[in-house]
């Protein structure tokens, strides 16, 4: 016990102190800040001791720091306060008006984390986005300020945008803006639900948080990696600075999924869900259900939606909305519609999957092991997720039969679908895409098949949780079964999907038309999938596939697999 008490002071307030390394934004042995000037010593980003010594030395002078040319105690308030405990340092408040004015105007009483959920028809957004909200003393929450970590990108799109984001070519900065701008952007502009969770930070912790935001906001930027060092990672880092013994970011080295960080924070007991703001999408759904499409207010909401989402909002529509609003202004409100959000992101199942199963493929019995690092499937538990969607990245299936040892059965780079129901006001198309490698593929007589697929169509919601979709997919299949090595396919697909908390089922009919150079092939597949939950993160999954070739019955076959799935 005495030994422990002795060793603590050795750590605290020294370059070995983990808190000092947090102040320097270290991960392991290296500082993450890409702005060289953030570190006062040339090797400050790899040597915390040198950085401590150099900071102490320079903070004792009259030097001005950072982009705003401020004295140390307000250019680096967090660092200065820490070092001031080691050795008393000169404090220059007369030139610090800007900093104090900023803090005083914010007058932060509470801090919340806001989670922006998925947006419609976009399964890639299921992992969400997080940012901080600083509560001021005023009544209305829209006047709060949001603190966000974001990449500054030019108006790049598509592949370059994706690659740059993946490999850290964009710079990420902290920025602050009125919360109403964020609500407009996410809730109205993008159709995303917002969830506000209040943090239980003490006044001291809030003060440290503000110091950290000012310090890094003015002096630093980071390489932005969309998969790992992203908005949610840096938000955790800020919280780890606010609360001295907090290490929320430690679990996130390579992949940081925003919805998962919400669970981490929840586990640390820092947090409580306070308010959810339904997206405009959801609001219209509710309004349409309760008031009907002919109600003036429904028409107003639909017009608002069109304005936010359509690229060409014309004069006629503008006038129409104006007249609808004049009408509305003469009416007294009888019912205020507030859509209830039943689930929030911390309730979603974990994104990783391990599945152990067995079944028959090509008339051979075998066992299968599946690993999916980031997955939400159509039949997975839907709570908190974008309905009727699938997003699967980098999944691997290994198979072992009596004759073969463990072999790669399937590798899927990406498999994504979105069966957003058609609504008269949003008219979204359904779609799906796939890039996969399959062994023992049934339509090529058990050989390997590589597929590049995309498809589009339309879906209709039959009742809550039940949707039916009609798609046309086009894909290139590559296999040495084909004389030329590849074939082109055009397949109509009809899907019926029922997703509920406890179980889900999928029925798919596929009418395949395949063309090779010299011949074509037509076949039919009927797929059934079923999931039954045993717990929050455990379920049983069963799949059945019937294959029928129109011209030759001898290839007809049934395949099946039953497995137990664990979600992490």
């Amino acid at each position: 016990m005495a030994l422990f008490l002795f060793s603590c002071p050795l750590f605290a307030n020294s370059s070995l102190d983990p808190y000092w390394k947090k102040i320097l934004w270290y991960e392991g042995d290296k500082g993450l800040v890409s702005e060289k000037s953030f570190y006062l010593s040339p090797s400050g980003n790899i040597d915390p001791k040198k950085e401590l010594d150099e900071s102490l030395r320079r903070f004792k002078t009259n030097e001005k720091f950072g982009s705003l040319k401020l004295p140390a105690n307000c250019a680096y308030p967090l660092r200065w306060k820490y070092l001031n405990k080691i050795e008393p340092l000169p404090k220059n408040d007369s030139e610090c008006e800007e900093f104090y004015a900023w803090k005083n105007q914010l007058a932060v009483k509470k801090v919340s984390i806001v989670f922006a959920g998925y947006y419609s028809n976009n399964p890639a957004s299921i992992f969400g986005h997080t940012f901080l909200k600083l509560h001021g003393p005023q009544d209305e929450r829209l006047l709060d300020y949001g603190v966000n970590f974001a990449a500054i990108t030019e108006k790049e799109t598509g592949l370059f945008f994706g690659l740059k984001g993946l490999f850290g070519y964009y710079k990420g900065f902290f920025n602050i803006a009125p919360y109403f701008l964020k609500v407009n952007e996410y809730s109205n502009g993008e159709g995303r639900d917002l969830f506000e969770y209040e943090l239980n930070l003490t006044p001291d912790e809030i003060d440290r948080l503000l110091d950290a935001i000012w310090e890094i906001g003015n002096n630093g930027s980071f390489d932005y990696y969309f998969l790992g060092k992203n908005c949610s990672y840096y938000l955790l880092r800020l919280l780890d600075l606010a609360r001295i013994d907090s290490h929320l970011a430690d679990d996130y080295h390579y992949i940081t999924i925003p919805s998962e960080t919400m669970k981490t924070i929840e586990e640390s007991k820092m947090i409580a869900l306070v308010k959810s703001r339904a997206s405009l999408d959801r609001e219209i759904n509710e309004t349409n259900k309760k008031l009907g499409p002919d109600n003036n207010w429904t028409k107003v909401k639909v017009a608002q939606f069109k304005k936010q989402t359509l690229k060409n909002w014309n004069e006629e529509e503008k006038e129409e909305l104006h007249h609808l609003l004049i009408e509305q202004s003469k009416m007294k409100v009888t019912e205020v519609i507030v859509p209830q959000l039943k689930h929030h992101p911390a309730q979603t199942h974990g994104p990783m999957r391990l599945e152990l199963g067995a079944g028959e493929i090509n008339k051979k019995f075998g066992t299968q092991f599946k690993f999916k690092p980031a997955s939400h499937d159509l039949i997975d538990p839907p709570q908190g997720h974008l309905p009727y969607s699938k997003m699967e990245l980098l999944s691997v299936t290994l198979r072992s039969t009596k004759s073969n040892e463990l072999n790669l059965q399937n590798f899927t780079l990406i498999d994504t679908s979105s069966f957003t129901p058609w609504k008269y006001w949003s008219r979204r198309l359904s779609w799906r895409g796939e890039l996969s490698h399959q062994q023992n593929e049934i339509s090529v007589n058990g050989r390997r098949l590589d597929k590049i697929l995309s498809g589009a169509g339309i879906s209709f919601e039959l009742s809550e949780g039940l949707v039916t979709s009609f798609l046309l997919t086009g894909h290139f299949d590559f296999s040495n079964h084909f004389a030329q090595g590849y074939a082109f396919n055009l397949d109509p697909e009809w899907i019926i999907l029922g997703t509920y908390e406890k179980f889900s089922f999928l029925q798919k009919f596929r009418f395949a038309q395949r063309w090779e150079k010299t011949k074509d092939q037509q076949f039919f597949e009927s797929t059934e999938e079923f999931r039954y939950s045993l717990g929050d993160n455990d379920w049983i999954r069963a799949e059945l596939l019937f294959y029928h070739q129109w011209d030759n019955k001898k290839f007809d076959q049934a395949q099946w697999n039953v497995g137990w799935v664990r979600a992490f």
Partner: protein
Amino acid sequence: MKKILAIVVLVTSFSAMADSSTGCGLGSLIWKENTIISALFRSTTNHSFSSQLFGITSGTSGCSQHSLVKRDMAPVYYAEANKEELKIDMARGEGEYLTTFAEALGCPSNLKKQFSNETQKNFSKIFPTSNTTPLEMLNSVKAVIKENSSLQGQCTYASI
């Protein structure tokens, strides 16, 4: 070079004229992109016109300082950013954007209901056409406040 300078001056003076006398305004638009690939990253990268760098006071110097809106400019800034939402709330006679507007104008909380009712009553005065600008709207709202016996003089930042 002179030509470029002239254009720059012209453009900046136009934008100054479009705003209040202290040259406050938002200017930029939300960058919207919703293709499949971009969305994969967009969900976390988040481009927005709120991405002002920290300590750097942007060109809208009369309006904000270190990205915080100056209190007396709050009604202008708020009106500009939320004109559409305000229009809808005002037509309805209730809503969060509307009560927040009341607070931005400095109206006490016990007068928020009155503010909502009055603005709804005077909707066609406040938004006479579909092209009413945020500033015109703001000035009309200030006039409505002035003309109402319960509201006049109660909203600190609503003086004309």
